[in-house]
């Protein structure tokens, strides 16, 4: 299945490889500000991809994935600060694994009850869970959520920090893209799409819906947790409010919606457009920043409810019908 899918999409994959390779030269040709914008585009795309594993493929829209960013960031942060003094890279590598493991573990604990809910109820329950975790992180002293944590500084090959994190995020994004592609074109991917279209029918036809949903929920959470660890390091100093941000949860949905839900290019298109628009174009209009973001959201749902890929598909169909 996978080999056939790779063959069918050879041109797209080639384009992806070329684009990723081109992105690798970005830190050499632009200013630090644009490298940071690139960082944010990569982070958002990767988060969007991790979200889409469950949200796009299976149709379970989580409104609380920022919980896993926070869990990953704080698990790794506390571990590295307390136990890994003086070994920043080893600490980072182990922290990455730990962050993913803790997020995945938390997801596996809540998965069974919470995945019984559907539609808006699942969305709301995830939102609730992320709020509970944020409040606990902020108010229980051993987590240091309100005081904040200073993470060990990483450095390698004499790269400037923003370039270093750009490359780390680039590697993470590439790995997640490959993983998402493999999942999409495997048996479990087909099962997830059956769940999205009609869960009861899928189950009746013998798709192990519960197992697929739980697996994807945990995978999505673990990847989000690992991204949270990288994000925390790129910030250098984290508090509850800098990693447990509801904004993150909503952005993951918005980027997917803008690009096209259930596709792999969707999150890339969506986050590139939104990040460049909000950071570069609107960066100077801070007082109406929120207003414009809100208006964009409204327009997006009304004008292109299926995202850019959906719009392109509709236009192409109209052309070929002529």
């Amino acid at each position, binding site marked *: 299945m996978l080999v056939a899918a790779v063959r069918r999409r050879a041109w797209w994959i080639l384009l992806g490889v070329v684009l990723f390779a081109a992105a690798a030269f970005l830190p050499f040709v632009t200013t630090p500000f644009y490298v940071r914008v690139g960082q944010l585009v990569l982070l958002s795309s990767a988060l969007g991809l991790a979200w889409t594993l469950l949200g796009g493929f299976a149709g379970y829209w989580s409104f609380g994935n920022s919980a896993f960013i926070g869990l990953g960031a704080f698990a790794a942060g506390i571990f590295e600060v307390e136990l890994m003094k003086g070994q920043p890279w080893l600490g980072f590598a182990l922290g990455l694994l730990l962050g993913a493991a803790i997020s995945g573990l938390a997801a596996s604990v809540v998965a069974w009850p919470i995945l019984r809910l559907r539609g808006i109820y699942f969305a709301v329950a995830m939102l609730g869970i992320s709020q509970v975790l944020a409040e*606990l992180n902020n108010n229980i002293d051993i987590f240091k959520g309100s005081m904040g944590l200073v993470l060990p500084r990483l450095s390698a090959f004499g790269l400037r920090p923003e370039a270093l994190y750009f490359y780390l995020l680039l590697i993470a994004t590439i790995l997640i893209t490959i993983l998402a592609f493999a999942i999409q074109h495997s048996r479990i991917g087909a099962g997830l799409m059956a769940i999205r279209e009609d869960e009861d029918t899928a189950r009746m036809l013998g798709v192990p819906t519960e197992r697929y949903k739980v697996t994807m929920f945990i995978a999505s959470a673990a990847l989000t947790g690992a991204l949270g660890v990288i994000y925390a390091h790129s910030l250098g100093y984290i508090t509850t409010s800098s990693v447990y941000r509801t904004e993150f949860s909503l952005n993951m949905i918005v980027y997917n919606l803008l690009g096209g839900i259930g596709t792999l290019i969707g999150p890339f298109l969506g986050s590139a457009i939104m990040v460049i628009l909000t950071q570069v174009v609107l960066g100077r209009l801070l007082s109406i920043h*929120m207003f414009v973001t809100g208006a964009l959201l409204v327009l997006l*749902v009304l004008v292109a409810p299926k995202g850019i890929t959906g719009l392109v598909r509709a236009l192409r169909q109209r052309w070929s019908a002529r």
Partner: protein
Amino acid sequence: MLALQTIADGLVLGGLYALSAVGFSLIFGVMGVVNLSHGALVMVGAYLAWFFWHALGLDPLVTIPVVMLCLGAFGYVYQRGLIQLAVDRSSHVASMLVTFGVALMLRNTLVLVFSPDLRSITPSYSGHPLLLGGIVIDPVRLAALGASLVLLGALALILNRSRMGRVIRATAQQELAARLCGVNAHHVYGLTFAVAAAFAGAAGAILGIVLPFSPPDEGLWTMNAFVVVTLGGVGSPQGALLGGLLLGVMATGTSQLIGPAFPNAMMFAVLVAMLLIRPSGLLGNAFAGSR
């Protein structure tokens, strides 16, 4: 005595929670839309009441009808112009994003017009606490609780006894059947949204005399409405009242017994637990889409 005082404080807060959530509950129950801009409507109500008090010296309890009219008109246009379009073109979950976008726009507008500073309304009768059988009660809070209960009762009457209420309930039960009987469903949705927004505005006006407020609070009030509705049950003033009072007592009880930092964590934990155990709420009947 401490327990009684805690419960009394909780009930006062709970009345406000109930009133601020009833519109959210109505919209969710009747059209299945989760209105994330509900808290923003509450804040608009609070700022309108503050404006009347600050500029004209009018008591917030007196200006409630005006605030309700303004927000009701806004709600009707908002539903017919935006939300219905989003539901028709996309899905209910996507309409959630539209309401979130509107919440951001309203919050930004409030900051631009009224500044991000903390505001509060202090009517003449505030600051003279009454002692009732050993329990201290602020007359302002008593007035707030009274006004909330009266408004909730009025809404229950409208929904259960008037023609408009009957039409709204019929459309909530089955849109198609209601339309076959000659109901203009889109108009009814608009009206429902108008009523909901009006009650959000009233809650805002009352909120203004009880607590200080600022534009970013809108998120908190949306969340409160969420919890109240999942606790009490969707679509009825009775459910909102029960959920609101329970939540109020729970909030004050948690800060008394566990610590002042924990009411929010407690609230959301209860929210998640309720969704898992009984998604339709204590008094709720399962509306379409809960499963």
